[in-house]
């Protein structure tokens, strides 16, 4: 039996801004250009991939974020079992997408760390290190953007008012976490 070590060993609450990693969350990158691709994904997972830029869609089990015209990240709404890393969703898509060459499916569960931020100062925090204009984003539930925060690439998902999911590559996550805490401490 292997021990499971998430990227961030602690969660923090600073100036009523809560910063915590949620894991394990299954994450897949799906790529495809063909018309049938989107419908095939839809059929297999009954979630319609968002085709409008900077948006997301959601089913009871999954959330899909638009990353580019031929790239999406799909992640599980709930945490998975730490002791297993075969994911049903991935298998389904491999059979219905990869195997018949409709597109590509790649497991990135540990490539990205999902950090959940809660509180009314989230965007003040972002403003201290991101060039992105969050003015409309923050009032738009489900909005998605890829940008830079503290010099690090991030994907941000407006989950709900004062709640966002932030995705960052694992090797950057501890640095970003420390940076966010430092920034939060001065909001």
């Amino acid at each position: 039996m292997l021990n499971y070590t998430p990227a961030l060993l602690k969660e923090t609450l600073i100036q009523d801004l809560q910063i915590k990693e949620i894991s394990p969350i299954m994450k897949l990158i799906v790529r495809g250009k063909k018309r049938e691709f989107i419908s095939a994904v839809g059929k297999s997972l009954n979630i319609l991939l968002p085709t409008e830029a900077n948006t997301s869609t959601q089913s009871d089990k999954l959330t899909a974020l638009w990353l580019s015209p031929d790239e999406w990240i799909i992640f599980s709404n709930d945490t998975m079992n730490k002791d297993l890393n075969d994911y049903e969703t991935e298998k389904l898509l491999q059979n219905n997408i990869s195997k018949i060459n409709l597109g590509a499916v790649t497991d990135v569960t540990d490539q990205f760390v999902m950090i959940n931020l809660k509180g009314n100062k989230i965007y003040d925090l972002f403003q201290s290190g991101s060039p992105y204009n969050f003015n409309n984003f923050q009032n738009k539930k489900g909005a998605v953007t890829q940008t830079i925060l503290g010099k690090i690439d991030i994907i941000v998902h407006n989950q709900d008012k004062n709640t966002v999911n932030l995705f960052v590559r694992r090797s950057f996550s501890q640095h970003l976490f420390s940076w966010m805490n430092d920034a939060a401490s001065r909001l």
Partner: protein
Amino acid sequence: MFLINCPFCGEREQSEFKAGGEAHIIRPKQPTELSDDEWAEYLFMRKNIKGVQFERWNHAHGCRKWFNVVRDTSNDEIKAVYKMGEKPPTI
């Protein structure tokens, strides 16, 4: 710092992008058929225009897509953006 209107993600800060130099320099389909001079032309020689230049940019910290930008290099004013493979606008 410019604002660049990514044809896929919309208007973003320049810092999210990477410049890719002069556009429409197509890699020769049959390099081995070329003389050293012709190959050097593709490899190194550039118009390096002062004025309206067609160039490549990549939304490196966003959708990672390459696209074309029409920019006046004498004052950095961006006149148009268009996707790879699209016909260049007439400026």
